[in-house]
């Protein structure tokens, strides 16, 4: 585990991972001892399509600085078409967040298969870096939830 003794900002990342591909991908990156930040909190969902826009917003409310949604590659969905719906939904949602002036780099969709442990780790590192540059989430923050 990384020990963070300087006060550098460590973003909290919530990663919604589909049970069949991305969660297995995350597992693989772990068994392969690949590094990705400890502040990435994985939430397993049956399918990326299970993720309601409310989930994304709630993650921000509860202190996430970035939210990433990982699912099977288009065409590989365990339920045939779930991730196609996810793709449309999330495109529109992210576009709306952008429209409201929420920094667009705080949200991302990435397709990660069960075999792509390396891609999972790389994606998380890259995404964390991008969010780190933005600093803490302030525009979509619930002040009541901010830790004093």
């Amino acid at each position: 585990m990384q020990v963070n003794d300087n006060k550098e900002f460590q973003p909290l990342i919530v990663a919604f991972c589909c049970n069949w591909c991305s969660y297995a991908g995350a597992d693989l990156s772990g068994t392969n001892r690949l590094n990705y930040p400890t502040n990435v909190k994985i939430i397993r969902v049956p399918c990326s399509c299970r993720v309601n826009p409310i989930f994304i917003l709630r993650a921000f409310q509860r202190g996430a600085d970035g939210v990433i949604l990982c699912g099977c590659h288009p065409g590989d969905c365990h339920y045939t078409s779930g991730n196609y719906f996810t793709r449309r939904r999330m495109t529109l949602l992210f576009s709306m967040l952008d429209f409201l002036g929420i920094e667009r780099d705080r949200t991302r969709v990435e397709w990660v298969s069960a075999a792509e442990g390396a891609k999972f780790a790389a994606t998380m590192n890259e995404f964390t870096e991008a969010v780190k540059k933005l600093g803490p989430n302030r525009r979509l923050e619930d002040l009541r939830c901010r830790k004093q």
Partner: protein
Amino acid sequence: MLKISIEKLNGLFKAVAEKQTLYIPADRADGASEYKKYEDGMTLSKNLNTLRSAKDFFFPQTENLADFKVEGKKIEVIDIREEAEDFVVFGVRACDARSFTILDKVFLSEPVDSYYKNRREHGTIVTMACAKPAETCFCGTFGIDPTEPEGDVSCWSDGDSIFFRPNNEKGQKFVDSVSELLEDGDTAKLDETKAQTKEIMAKLPLANLSTEAFGGDTLMEHFKSEKWAELSESCLGCGTCTFVCPTCQCYDIKDFNTGHGIKRFRCWDSCMYSDFTKMAHGNIRNSQLERFRQRFMHKLVYFPSNNNGEFGCVGCGRCLSKCPISMNIVKVMKALEVK
């Protein structure tokens, strides 16, 4: 009477704002006005009234009541109440000024609501007489004279100057604090303005609206009226009327889990909402008819029944202009008073 010329009014605002927070009605980009914290250069709105009423100052839409820390089986209550800071609300109209009397009857009756009382004690209300009432005004129906507003200090404008009259100790303190800016003035022109306003009041379309058919003793008669079905059929069940109303005071208490504690907060609620009376085992007001009836019965019958005949409406006309489907207390009164 003490007065200040209108050109110098901003100087007075500045002097007040230096000592305590001052709120004045200010114009918004969309033409409506709302109370804003006074900052240098802000001007007083010329609109008759603000979009939202002044009740927010004493009974805000949401406020924190208490915090809780929960650890295992242990609970700790944290009293977060703090003494409010002194503030002044300037330009409150006669209708809104009366609404405080009505809210007082609810919140200052035993057991006293300390949150409300705290702000009430620290707020000074400076009222402003109306000169140009709108067609939606019917404060006269409830015995309010818009040319003689209540409040801690009453103000009038004759077009050139603003006149001040303190009504109590708090008001006197306010007038004293700005006395060097005030001068003694002649009220001849003001009396003329008042007379003109009264003439207009008598000509308003709702001038003849009467409360005669309402009050505590008409409870069952109005409750059982068959007209509620027709009146309520187009109601959307939104909370617009409730939230713009200066006298609506129903609230909800809810807990919010912040992840590191529980915040218990109170927020405005509306009897028009479907979950207002919903319990684990059912709902006593299941239809919009019953909820609609509750709101108007509360204002016209239940409230006077419990408060010596005082009605729970001040005739500010906000619901008349804001209801999405234009169903309002005036239409209800006119429908119900016909036997």
